[in-house]
């Protein structure tokens, strides 16, 4: 075995060791590496009184603007499809906030089950589409932004050709 081979084997062995150490560490700390918990996670364990981030979609038809006590407030439900959490928030909402949008709210869960938020962030998804495409998809009834993510990009050009005949969703 030449010195080059020795060095090669040594580096590969170190790499293997470090790699598995990192993998184990990341797996072990996986719960702490998440930026937010889902409504399902929140329902599973008792987080009352602890500050945490809750992430999910703004449930359709639940956004209520309240202007009590002078400042603009909002009340909505955050859902992940299987569970939902009522949220109250007072303050400025990000521009992207709407029904069906992914949001992350920072706050605490009150004993009555309501999540009192001190910060609302909008989560952008991985879809990028021009306004015209979004309008065409909505007009043809193939996509409702309030109900969920848009159809796959490969089908975006279709509604221009066939405006009717596709069931929504």
């Amino acid at each position: 075995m030449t010195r080059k081979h020795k060095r090669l084997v040594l580096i590969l062995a170190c790499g293997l060791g470090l790699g598995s150490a990192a993998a184990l560490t990341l797996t072990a700390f996986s719960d702490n590496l998440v930026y937010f918990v889902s409504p399902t996670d929140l329902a599973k364990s008792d987080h009352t009184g602890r500050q945490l981030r809750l992430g999910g979609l703004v449930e359709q038809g639940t956004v209520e603007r309240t202007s009590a006590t002078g400042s603009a407030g909002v009340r909505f439900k955050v859902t992940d499809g299987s569970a939902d959490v009522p949220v109250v928030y007072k303050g400025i909402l990000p521009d992207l906030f709407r029904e069906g949008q992914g949001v992350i709210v920072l706050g605490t869960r009150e004993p009555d089950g309501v999540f009192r938020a001190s910060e609302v962030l909008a989560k952008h998804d991985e879809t990028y589409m021009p306004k015209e495409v979004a309008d065409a998809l909505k007009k043809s009834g193939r996509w409702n932004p309030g109900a969920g993510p848009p159809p796959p990009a490969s089908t975006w050009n279709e509604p221009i050709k066939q405006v009717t005949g596709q069931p929504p969703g």
Partner: protein
Amino acid sequence: MDARSSAASPRSGHVLHRFANPGQFLRLSGRVLPWLYWPGVLLTAGALIWGVFFAPSDWQQGDTVRIMYVHVPFAWLASAGYFSLAVCSFISLVWRHPLADLAAVELGPVGAAFTAVCLATGSLWGKPTWGAWWVWDARLTSVFVLLLLYLGHIALVRAFDDPTRGYRAGAILALVGVINLPIIKFSVDWWNTLHQPASIGLTGAPTIASSMLWPLLFSAIGFTLLFAAIVVTRTRAAVMERRIRGLLMAKASSASEQEALS
């Protein structure tokens, strides 16, 4: 070190040794360089004009989406640059190539600058889109760690009086830091993050409208060529600097020898 590598190259006949010969590298890179710079400048300029003035705005982000044409290529190059740094470090540690050492030293600042621009443009996009300049989610934090790794490498390779020791220490740091690259890439899939998952992948169609995807791909190619051009230029300068230093040292030592004789 130069003398040793050039003496070893004809005998071993290893492919790497041919390119490790500094003279050969200067000749070859001199010929390649204009083919990196000019297409790089033209593609980047064209793609940015396309992206800023002609590509459509996004239906919910509006014109903010145009930051993507800088942010995404810089993010890719920040990771790709670190990968190149790690490859140079591996070659340097195993085969002790002087050229790999020089390339690693010159890659560091370029990669750090690209990472910094990626973080800055991302922050500019994050404020209007998410509502926050910065959050400590897994993606943003791992890219910040990448910047720290670059900065650490820059400092470490220059921290020793004997440059060879600096190269070794820097190479080990660079190889240890490689573990961060898969974390950056898959952070958005493994953990809940504020940052969105990848829009372009090897499997599955991209989720970007083609009218936005084309300028993005062109700007990515353009910036990649420019990145390569900057690194090659810096490495050429480093090789020439080392040669000049060698010549000056030889001249000084021969002059002092003659003085001693007379």
